[in-house]
């Protein structure tokens, strides 16, 4: 029996000593980050056209199109240091109908543990005032995606379209919210800063994925409540556009981060 005891003792001892602690890692180099934009309606994954969602009062909506411009991405690490993604490469169009567009891949990110992300919805005045040539390829991309009224009127930052019914409007009726800055007269560009649920650890060998959920229910029922029976079409509106911009900003949340 003694042999058995020794065997057990040595077995346990060996298992414990097999693992010794690791030295503090030195973080250098650059890596990548993937930013995923996942649209939802409340807790449900957003389904275009097929699903009917309850909005305010008796209004029922079917959403047929959701698009927005994501821009000026910045990452903040645990020391509070901010990395700004190169501005000329920091404009993206996220479209619900184009899965690829929902994954934004950022490269040459300094390796660090990032805890916060900031991005803008739309195009800032600084960029807009660079003129048509200053927009680079993004101008064409926005035009092709229907994210511009005209050069003078500017970019559409957010497009939200579909059909709705209500007690008053019994036949399916189109609605469309197009929000953007109005030339340089009304600036609706807004930024949102989100804390990450757990840190995004960018390394030369590891690409974290920040999974952002955008809850479209917030558009009609956010800081401002919109009744489609009051106004089903909102395009250029000095009062309502800024309110929509605020609702859009409030719809983003970081669900999780994969390292």
């Amino acid at each position, binding site marked *: *029996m003694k042999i*058995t005891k020794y065997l057990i003792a040595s077995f346990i001892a060996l298992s414990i000593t097999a*693992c010794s*602690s690791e030295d503090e890692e030195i973080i250098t180099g650059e890596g990548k980050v993937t930013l995923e934009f*996942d649209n939802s309606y409340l807790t449900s994954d957003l389904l275009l056209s097929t699903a009917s969602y309850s909005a305010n009062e008796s209004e029922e909506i079917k959403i047929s199109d959701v698009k927005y411009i994501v821009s000026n991405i910045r990452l903040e690490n645990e020391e509070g240091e901010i990395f700004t993604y190169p501005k000329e490469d920091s404009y993206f169009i996220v479209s619900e109908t184009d899965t690829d567009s929902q994954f934004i891949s950022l490269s040459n990110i300094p390796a660090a543990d990032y805890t916060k992300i900031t991005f803008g919805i739309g195009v800032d005045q600084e960029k807009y005032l660079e003129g048509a040539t200053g927009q680079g390829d993004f101008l064409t991309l926005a035009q092709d995606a229907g994210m511009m009224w005209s050069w003078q009127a500017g970019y559409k930052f957010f497009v939200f379209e579909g059909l709705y019914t209500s007690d008053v409007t019994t036949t399916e009726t189109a609605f469309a919210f197009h929000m953007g800055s109005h030339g340089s007269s009304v600036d609706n560009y807004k930024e949102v800063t989100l804390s990450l649920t*757990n840190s995004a*650890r960018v390394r030369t060998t590891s690409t974290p994925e920040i999974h952002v959920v955008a809850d479209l229910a917030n558009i009609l029922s956010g800081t401002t409540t919109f009744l489609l029976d009051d106004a089903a079409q909102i395009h250029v509106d000095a009062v309502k556009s800024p309110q929509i911009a605020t609702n859009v900003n409030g719809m983003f949340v970081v669900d*999780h981060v994969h390292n």
Partner: protein
Amino acid sequence: MMNVLQNIKIKKSIVFLGFVLLTFQSFANHNFKNCSNHEPDSFEFFFCDLCGCSTSSGSFGLGTLNNASFVGVRYIYQTFESKDGIFSNSPTSTENFHTYQLWGRLPINEKLYVSAILPYQDLKRTYTDREENINGFGDATIMSWYKFKFYKKLDEEKAKLYTNVQKEPSGHSLEIGLGAKLPTGKFEQILADRVNPGFQLGTGSLDGILGLAHSYGADKFGVNTSLTYYFKNENKNEYKFGNQFSYASNFFYAISKEKYMLLPFVGLSGNIYDKIEQYQEEIPKTDGNVVNGTFGAEITTKDFIIGANYTLPISHNLFGGNVTPKQSLSIYLNFNLNN
């Protein structure tokens, strides 16, 4: 007589050695060398560990809480339904976990015994459009148990009349166990990113186990209760399963026949999990608890114990409600080494 005794000892030693060797073998298969950083992680009580076995708990069997030494095999089947995505309308996947265990128990002396379990896992997950399967050794568990026996108070009148009055057992016994779960099962980071983090062969960590078991046996019935705490450690991916508290209590009734004893039982068990951590940060929606109801029966003969039980969750909230435990089934066959 001496020969017979020695034979028994040899037999026991061979069985135990076999266990140890098998465990080492599986260590070797699962890149033991990579374990140069931190490793340890999680475990479970008598026989279930979070990986591939996250929500069941149990004991070594009712008839085996005496000082018997045995070696046996057990099969556990469990099913879960997990969300394949983060939304309420995300599709679900069905998980079927098959666990085959080699287990045994060996007394070292009157009060002390050692138990060991080596599992083999075969885990399957069916999505709406694809399937996933992993198999291999799971995490081996080794524990040592110290047993306290309780006796009735001596009858003082009797003690005066007779010289050799034996202490009468009270029927209660208490065991304290201390052990480790070894990282013999493979841990894959990619699987940890899915909704059910329990879909792993092993935790990849060396974990500590503290167990407390009480049993009471009267003539016709008995109650076994066990409490276990798993101190989970970080593995080499800096991933740390949440500490786990398991409890189980079974009430059994004994029906004695000439050649065997039948023990039907009912019981309650449960697990409470802390949040999983990675890189020293808690991961949201990774804690939970589950309460199970169990019924089953065991047949004990001179040479073997055969048992089966069926477990159904009564209430649960696992991983933010995204994992739903379904029924599980366990059957086992133990050979008595005392004869």
